[in-house]
């Protein structure tokens, strides 16, 4: 008897649900383009990529099933370039993210204070690089960093210092890439910090200063903690950025010298469209995805757990 009641109640609920869906059909129509496109250009590629990663294929002709070979390849000598690119991503991350984030924060603080005039002007100038094509910027930096005759070295020479092998040395090339990336992204990060700063109520810092804290202390113990979400956002974006650098690398260094500035995105592109190993590229894409995911989770954990 009870069962019958439950069944009819469930049926009743289902009918309710269906009526609701029909009533709200327009909403589904409106949101459908995303899901349709995602199906074709998001979901399908993701699944196909899994399939491909177990095959060897050069884009033309038959696909050859190779099982886990593409993955074990990464753990042998063949994976050298891939792991180098991951290592580069990490190195680059630590080379520019802390400095850039801190600098963005400091600049935002300075601009936010009413201490300095020309707020608009400075903000515009610092933000402008963000809208620039990194290909154009990369080329320009390449010219300026040229060892013989480039602007930077000529300037150093004028100061009596020797020129720097900006693009010929492993570490200097990384520095050059970081310079380019910082140039392009500092303004963006500064602007979001500025917005974040504006959400911090004055009274908090006022109270701290009245209590005898120095400005620097207030900065470190109040401002930064309150800005944590924004800082975290900035850092996470920069993480994905440092592994995914493509335009910048192609325009400035091509990945060299000796693979010092090879990022994972460039490497996977090379494997796919340079060596025509589509299966291998798919497998590497997934390993890369997994690593990024973990790295990001770690950051969320680390930043999320502070005082």
């Amino acid at each position, binding site marked *: 008897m009870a069962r019958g009641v439950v069944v009819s109640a469930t049926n009743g609920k289902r009918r309710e649900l269906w009526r609701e869906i029909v009533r709200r059909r327009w909403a589904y129509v409106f949101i459908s383009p995303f899901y349709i496109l995602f199906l074709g250009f998001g979901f399908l590629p993701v699944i196909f990529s899994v399939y491909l990663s177990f095959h060897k294929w*050069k884009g033309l002709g038959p696909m050859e099933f190779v099982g886990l070979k593409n993955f074990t*390849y990464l753990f042998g*000598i*063949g994976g050298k370039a891939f792991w180098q690119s991951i290592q580069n991503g990490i190195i680059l991350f630590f080379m520019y993210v802390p400095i850039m984030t801190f600098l963005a924060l400091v600049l935002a603080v300075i601009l936010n204070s009413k201490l300095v005039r020309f707020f608009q002007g400075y903000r515009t100038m610092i933000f402008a690089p963000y809208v620039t094509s990194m290909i154009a910027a990369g080329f320009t930096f390449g010219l300026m960093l040229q060892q013989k005759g480039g602007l930077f070295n000529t300037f150093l020479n004028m100061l009596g210092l020797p020129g720097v092998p900006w693009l*010929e040395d492993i570490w200097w090339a990384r520095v050059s890439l970081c310079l380019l990336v910082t140039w392009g992204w500092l303004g963006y990060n500064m602007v979001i910090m500025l917005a974040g700063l504006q959400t911090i109520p004055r009274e908090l810092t006022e109270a701290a200063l009245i209590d005898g804290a120095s400005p620097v202390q207030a900065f470190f113990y109040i401002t930064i903690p309150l800005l944590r979400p924004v800082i975290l956002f900035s850092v996470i974006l920069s993480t994905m950025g440092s592994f995914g650098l493509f335009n910048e690398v192609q325009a400035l260094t091509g990945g060299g*010298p*000796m693979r010092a500035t090879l990022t994972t995105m460039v490497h996977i592109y090379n494997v796919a469209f340079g060596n025509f190993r589509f299966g291998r590229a798919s497998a590497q894409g997934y390993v890369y995805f997994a690593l990024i995911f973990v790295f990001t989770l770690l950051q969320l954990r680390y930043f999320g757990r502070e005082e």
Partner: protein
Amino acid sequence: MSHKHILYKMTTMIILGVIAITACGPAATPAAEVVEVTRIVEGETITEYVEVTPTPLPEAEKPTGKIVLWGWTAAIRDTIEAAGIIEDFNAEYPDIEVEIQYYGPSDVYINLPLALTAGEGAPDVCLVENSHLSEYVHLGGLLDLTDMLQPYLDNIVEYKMFDCEKDGKYYCMPWDGGPVVMYYRRDVFEAAGLPTDPAEVSATIATWDDYLAACRTIKEETGNYCFAHNKANNYARLYEMVLWQQGLGYYDPDTGEVTVDSPENIATLEMLGQFWEEDLVSDSLEWTDPWYAELAAMESPIIATLIEASWMDIFMKSWIAPGTGGKWGVAHMPAYEEGGARASNDGGSVFVIPEQTKNPDAAWAFVEFVLGRDRSVLRMFAISGFIPSLKSSYDDALFLAGDSFFAGQNVNSVYADVNAKIPRAGVYGPNYAMMNGSVSVAIQLYATGEMTAEDALREAAAEIRAGLE
């Protein structure tokens, strides 16, 4: 004999004669032609008249339609077009329209393979360097030209067909070769107390050991660099030339085995390393401004020698170092060891026809016209120094002329001589890009002192072997 009989006989003879003339021998062969040829010497364009014997016209019905040609400006615009070949082509094939799209070599190597694998977007004729040819032949998607090539095969220098062959079929029509010689500065040699006459230079610097000694002399006596060999951005070109002359390479052409870390390959790299160790070579990277400056210089620092292919001379004459006319000479490159080959290859290019072409007849007509006829290849050679692969063309007067840029030396004959002696080697091949990539990194690591030659090459070899699976 009756009149009828004689008439009958004469008619028969006339008919037979006509048949004989039209069927046997080349159809419509004109006598040797005199063509006007322009060349660039020391930045100036001079016009000459050269006698050229053309090859016969094909007999099939003439194709029509439009074809798209991809290639780089130095070869297409500044050579084919500048020599008037397109006009000549259209004179013979008025209904074929040739549309040209310029791409630099590296861009051809991005776009062509993508188009081949996608099955669409490829041109009808594409210019490809020998280094990348084998890769595309093995990738698939190129038109099999074996049948059309039959009449030409005997006339083509052997080593050019090696990279375009697969399973007994041919997929390209060769254009120019890359016979490697040693360019040297007579003025620097004189100042260093070395001979300046090409024959003497070739005799004095007969092996790489001799070369090392000569380089030390040049450094001591004049303070100039012997040649340019960059460390950090080295892309293995010189190394490949030295491997090639020994018949070595990245792989064994017979067995397919990777030989990147063979004892001979390691020894070759170490031999080149000596020049770095003794600081005898400039660190300028080829094809960059500092390199051009050192080649064109009249006072230190000058690069005294350059081991490079014959196509280099037109670049030097026209825009790299036009002001150094009369100061250069051409000698044979040193042999690796006593008695070894003094010939190697660097570069060279071919035309390929992608299978997806909608107009294979017109495409082949173009390829055949431009590269299958002495007249065309010689005119292009005169302008750009792209040495033809057609052996019959070497009979031409161009190969007897002296060149004032080289103080009157007959350099073309040296090129032709070297071209015929290039050994078989496993440098290019279906996986050249990957092999060159790994080995370049190895050389860079060795040159900058990060690893020993053996370790660097072993790692590169392991990487390559893994990558080939």
